[in-house]
Structures are given as structure tokens and as C-alpha cells.
């Protein structure tokens, strides 16, 4: 079963640990955070559970169609970035419990002073392509 672990810049319920955005951390704190993320992904490759991990830029815009023959309308750059998706990890695991366990570990990534940031991650099951079971 595949699950998406979605990381928002500041989304989700009220933060448990109120820390400054990552660009205000000490460089070695940033390095430690990045290293944790990489090692976490490496470990999931080893356990046969890793599918994908991507980070997103804060740049970009909302885009929509404005009718045939007209260029799409854009709205950006984003005025408010806190609800934006910052990145994700896709895992392929045996159960919901395992997905929650891994999300818990990922959420404990180190932040300022090496303390776990305890950020909220959104955990979402993938819909499969094959319909389940019989008619």
C-alpha cells in the first residue's frame, strides 16, 4: 500500500514546537536537517519501502484556463506561503500503522539546536488502479 507523506510550510493543526522558518536556522542546523532527510530516504530504500521524495520551491503561481484561444490566467507569486506544500515522500508499506510510524519518525527531523521539530505531516493513502476484489 502506498502512502503520501505531505509536508506543508506551515499547514496542519497548531504547531507543537514554534520554531522559526528554516532560512533563519544556523547553517549547521540546516545541514543536519537535510542529512536526516537523506538518511531517512536511504534507510527506506534498504527496507524496500521507498518510492519517491521531492521538495518544492516556494516560487510558482496559481494558473487557470481563461477560455479557448486565450492565454491562461496566472495569479502569483504567492502572497501567503504557509499553506503551500513544501515537499513529499511516497512510501510503499504493509499497513497504515507502519505509515504512521514512519511519518512519526520523519516528523522528528532535527531543527534549531538539534531539537526534533515535531511538525505535522499529512498522511494520505493512494487510491489503487486495480479495483479490489470481486463483483
Amino acid at each position, binding site marked *: 500500500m502506498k502512502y503520501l507523506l505531505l509536508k506543508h510550510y506551515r499547514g496542519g493543526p497548531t504547531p507543537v514546537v514554534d520554531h522559526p522558518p528554516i532560512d533563519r536556522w544556523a547553517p549547521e542546523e540546516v545541514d543536519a536537517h537535510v542529512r536526516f532527510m537523506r538518511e531517512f530516504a536511504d534507510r527506506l*530504500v534498504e527496507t524496500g519501502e521507498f518510492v519517491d521524495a521531492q521538495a518544492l520551491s516556494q516560487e510558482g503561481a496559481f494558473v487557470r484556463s481563461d477560455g479557448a484561444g486565450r492565454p491562461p490566467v496566472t495569479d502569483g507569486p504567492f502572497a501567503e506561503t504557509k499553506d503551500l506544500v513544501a515537499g513529499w515522500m511516497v512510501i510503499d508499506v504493509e499497513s497504515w500503522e507502519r505509515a504512521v510510524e514512519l511519518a512519526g519518525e520523519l516528523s522528528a527531523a532535527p531543527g534549531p539546536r538539534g531539537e526534533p521539530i515535531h511538525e505535522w505531516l499529512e498522511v494520505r493513502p493512494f487510491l*489503487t488502479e486495480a479495483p479490489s476484489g470481486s463483483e
Partner: protein
Amino acid sequence: MNPELVRELVPAVIGVLVRRGADFAAAEDAVQEALVRALETWPDDPPREPKAWLIAAAWRKFLDATRSESARRSRELAADAEPPAAPAPAADDTLRLYFLCAHPTLSPAAAVALTLRAVGGLTTRQIAAAHMVPEATMAQRISRAKRRIEGLPLDAPGDLTTVLRVLYLVFNEGYGGDVDLAAEAIRLARQLAALSAEPEAAGLLALMLLHHARRASRTAPDGRLVPLAEQDRSSWDTRMIEQGVAILQAALARDRLGEYQAQAAIAALHADAPTAAETDWVQIVEWYDELLALTDSPVVRLNRAVAVGEADGPQARLAALADLDPALPRHAAATAYLLERAGDLPGAAARYAEAARVATSVPERDHLTREAARLRQLTRAQR
């Protein structure tokens, strides 16, 4: 030689290497390497004796691996360059591989991957593509599975139940990448049914054939899911249905009923009906009773409740459903279906929308969403 035929050789070649003294993990690795090489070179330079070629190539790979290993650990060579005369192939080897690869200590995902590689002869790349995970992840999943069963003897009696469950999982995965996993599961089940005298092995094969025969009618050209009652029965593969029924009858004649035989019997009754209205629901309910006696699962009880009411009318069935846990998969969809037949269109629409929210696959979600939309349109038209 087409890749399908090469793959059929894989379990036998692993068996030969194991009987020459290689341990399972090393033999499996060596055969996989030889297989990848065969897939590269055979199209241009086909061997006269494919099996002999594969054995020779795999044995060389095994010796190379053993040598570099022994050089590293400065250990004595277990095997010499000249292979010992191959013992007569034992048909049991392949059956034992099934048991080992679906060993109860393995997680379902690990057992599926290992079975597809060592018994099915698929490459790691193909298995990874079929499951949409990176090749490195799948390679690790397979090697962890092999470590987990390390040291288990290849000749120990196995657990057929887990083997059947693994093949059924593969069957239900359907298409993935360039491999048709449903067809592959049928191939492996056919091989297993030929090797094992257990009627449940034949029962699983019959069940797969009876479902597979209807595959073309189950999805519309635009990808929409078509419910059983609305399927174009003329597009069912009658030859495959006949085959499934014959295999099922032979299995039932052995008088050791099991879960898969009972499910296949239900599928056979559906396949046998010239129109949905002519379905023999009375017999289907009897088979559900057998199935319930074998495995008291809530899902079976839900399906039974649906079957019961086909004769007794939607109200009786709604009452039967009310006794079941609403959290069951498909409970909302089954209730919606019955509410519509009972004339409660807004209620049915609401339950279909609820079912769509908890659906686990894209085709089901889309189907249930469309049903909700259809009923809401009908409701508006009636006002």
C-alpha cells in the same frame, strides 16, 4: 525464443543449481543474472538448447560469485569449475520453490516479489515497474526476503495456504508496467495445480480463469467500471469459462472443499447465467453458506446478504445489511444499490457519495461518483 518461455525455465534452473550445492539465495541471484543476459543476447543469437545454456550461464555466474566471495574471505572453494553431472530433474523442485518464496515468515509484499522473481522468472526491473517503485527499492525488498528465509531447507514441507494467498494477491494486482500480472498469476497457478494434488490449488486456478474470462467486459472502452449485471455477456471468453468450470468440477469431485473452490463455484454460477436476470441466486446463496462455514469473514457475510435479497427483494436485504458493521468495505455501496431498488433515490445517492469517499481504487471511486450523480439527476427530474 520468446521471454515467456525463458521464464518458464527459471525455477527448474534454480533447482539444478541448488541440487549442485548452491544455497538458494546465491542460486537465485546467479539465475537472475543469467536470465538478464539471456534476454539481451538471445534475440540475436538464440541457443540451440535454451535450458542447457541457462544452466551453464547461471553456474558460471554462481562460480564467479563464489570465487570473489571466497577470495575476499580466503575461504575454500565449495565448488570446482567443472560442474558435477546434473542429477535427474525433480518436479518437486519447482513446488518447493513456491513454498519457500511464500514462506509464512515473509510479509505479503516480500513474498509476492520473491515469487515473481524466483518462480515467475521476472527481472527485478519488471517487478519494480509492475509495482511502481524504484528498482533499487525492489532489489532491497527481494534481498531482505532472501535473508529472512536464509538457511531454511528447500525440501521442507510447505504451507500451501500462503502460496495460494500470494498468487491471488498477484492476480488482483492486474496490469502493471509491461507485465500482465493477472495472466502471470494464472500461469503460476496452472503450474502449481499441475504439481500439487491439493484441490484448493485447482480451485484457485478455476477462480482466476472464471474471473479473467470476464475481464474484457468489466471495463468500458473509456475505462469506466461496468457492474456485473450490465456487462456484455457475449464478450465473455466462453472457452476460458468452460476450462475453469471443468477444473472446478474435477476439484470438487475430490470432496475436500475449501475457500477457493467455493468462491470459484459462485463465479461459475455467475458465468453460467445467459442474462443477469437468469442468475441462480438460490444456489449462489448456498455456496455463500458453505463459504461462511469455511471462513467466517464479514466480507463474505456482506456478499451473502446481497445475494439473499436478489430473490427476497431489496427490503429483506436492507434488513440483512443493517445487522452488519457499516464500516465494512462496500457496505455503503451495497446499501446504496438496495436503496435505489427500493425506490429511495436521494438516500441511495447519499450512500453512493459516501461509498465514493471511502473507495480504495480510482475505477471504483469514479464508478460510485457517477452513480451518485446519476441518482441526483433522477431525483431532480422527479421533482
